[in-house]
């Protein structure tokens, strides 16, 4: 479904600030794979996400989605294949537009925009049904401006908007990190539910090791721009946070040093 072939990215090449963000990343996702990515700050997780989504171009290597080489495709064209949820709950929605207008925009991710109305009667019914699956009562607030929603509600809406059009690949970039524990749990549960419901091929970056261990069928640990550990299937199911930490120390011979690595 998603293939990354020999992806390398260097920032500020040839200057004193040169930083190798990604080194020969090789990764292949099967349809329905749910991969969680962990790693300390600067490990290259965000760069990887940005390269897949097309915000950044790799220096070398290829991004292949569904057998199609999309490496040189622009961010907005590539968005036809990719659903994204950002860390900032404000980033995924348009605050001065209503819930139904936001959903209409998301609806057009895969369909070319024309001069027909964005919100039709038929679509409104569809939006209502889809919103009801969140169980937040948003289906009764279709005309409310999204800016009036709480952070948790906005992130739930962002998640729904990124997924209800069934993207080939779903990218979740620390999408629960900016929420309080209760809201984060809500979004985590919704993520699980939605990914299972639509059988989405998903790549999720997280700093929460517990979450990384619980969710998904594969886990990847990154450090210094490389994939240093990978677990899938039965091995992934048996993983614990302690085992992960030990693994990291064994490979790198150093403490898993990150101010943001939440241990529980």
């Amino acid at each position: 479904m998603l293939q990354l072939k020999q992806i390398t990215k260097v920032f500020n090449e040839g200057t004193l600030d040169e930083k190798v963000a990604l080194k020969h990343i090789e990764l292949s996702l099967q349809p329905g794979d749910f991969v969680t990515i962990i790693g300390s700050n600067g490990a290259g997780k965000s760069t990887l996400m940005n390269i897949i989504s097309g915000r950044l171009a790799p220096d070398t290597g290829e991004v292949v989605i569904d057998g199609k080489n999309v490496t040189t495709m622009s961010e907005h064209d590539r968005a036809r294949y990719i659903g994204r949820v950002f860390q900032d709950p404000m980033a995924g929605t348009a605050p001065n537009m209503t819930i139904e207008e936001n959903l209409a925009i998301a609806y057009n991710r895969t369909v070319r925009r024309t001069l027909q109305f964005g919100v039709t009667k038929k679509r409104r019914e569809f939006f209502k049904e889809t919103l009801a699956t969140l169980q937040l009562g948003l289906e009764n607030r279709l005309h409310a401006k999204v800016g009036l929603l709480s952070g948790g509600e906005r992130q739930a809406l962002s998640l729904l908007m990124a997924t209800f059009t069934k993207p080939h690949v779903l990218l979740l970039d620390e999408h629960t990190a900016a929420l309080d524990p209760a809201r984060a749990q809500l979004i985590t549960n919704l993520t699980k539910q939605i990914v299972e419901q639509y059988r989405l091929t998903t790549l999720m970056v997280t700093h929460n090791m517990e979450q990384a261990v619980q969710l998904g069928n594969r886990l990847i640990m990154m450090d210094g721009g490389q994939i240093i550990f990978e677990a899938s299937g039965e091995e992934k199911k048996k993983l614990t946070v302690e085992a992960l930490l030990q693994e990291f120390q064994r490979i790198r011979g150093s403490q898993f040093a990150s101010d943001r690595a939440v241990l529980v």
Partner: protein
Amino acid sequence: MITALFSSVEAGLLYALMALGVYISFRILDFPDLTVDGSFVTGAAVASVLIVGGVNPFIASLAALGAGFLAGCATGLLHTKGKINPLLSGILMMIALYSINLRIMDKPNVPLLQQETVMTIITTAFQRFDQALATFIPFIPKTWAIIVFGVLLVTIVKVVIDLFLKTEVGLALRAVGDNKKMIASFSGNTDRLTIIGLGLSNALVAFSGALIAQYSGFSDIGMGIGMIVIGLASVIIGEALFGAKTIVRATLAVILGAIVYRIVITLALRVQFLETGDVKLITALIVILALVVPQMVATRAEKQRKARKRGAAVASTQADYESV
């Protein structure tokens, strides 16, 4: 006095088209577009030159609309493809248009007084009703038909804008001004949308310029100076007076704002010690007032609300003490 008010409503209606254009760039796209000062004259120049050349004035006005669209697209290209800051793109285009407008007109001023224009066509077409109307409303000026035409035209443009902003493309356009990152993640080509939006905005501005030239009987190279401020004044006054909760409401507010602005200027110029040259200063003052006063009113209302709340709390605790 009544005639003066009448003509300020007439002009206000024609300027309202320009204000709607500014609304699209300034509010919908969140792009402070200074191209307006140039594209307004471009519209006037294109229409005047064509009319003098014998082209039907309605077609000439539509050609002006097209020219404005191109000017707006050019600003959009400078910003999106040239990666130039929005203000600077507008300023560059404005200054470039000054020379282009001179080239179009071939001289700084093109008189239209002897020509058949949209305005003369409309006033003659409705002339036969003059007599009938005059029996009901004795003080009605000869140009009443222009107001009817203006109201019709502005209403049509307003409704088309309202509907357009609800289409799929329109929603995407609004999202560009609201959250660029979001619309890009939903396959919106932000560059193309910005270019189209600025094109539409300046098309309206140029169309307004074409009509104003025909209304006042000339086009002049300097007629666009400060136009952006007048547009902003209309938008800001309109929103302050009439609200901007929804798009439908906001576009109506902008139109009314343009008319109110004209009326205020007309009234201000009737004051003894003010001169015609003071118009720009008055405009600046009006915009400042329209920006500052609503804020002050809001903070004061908030303070009073809080004071009341505190008062009520104190009263209830006192009541508690007394009951004990």
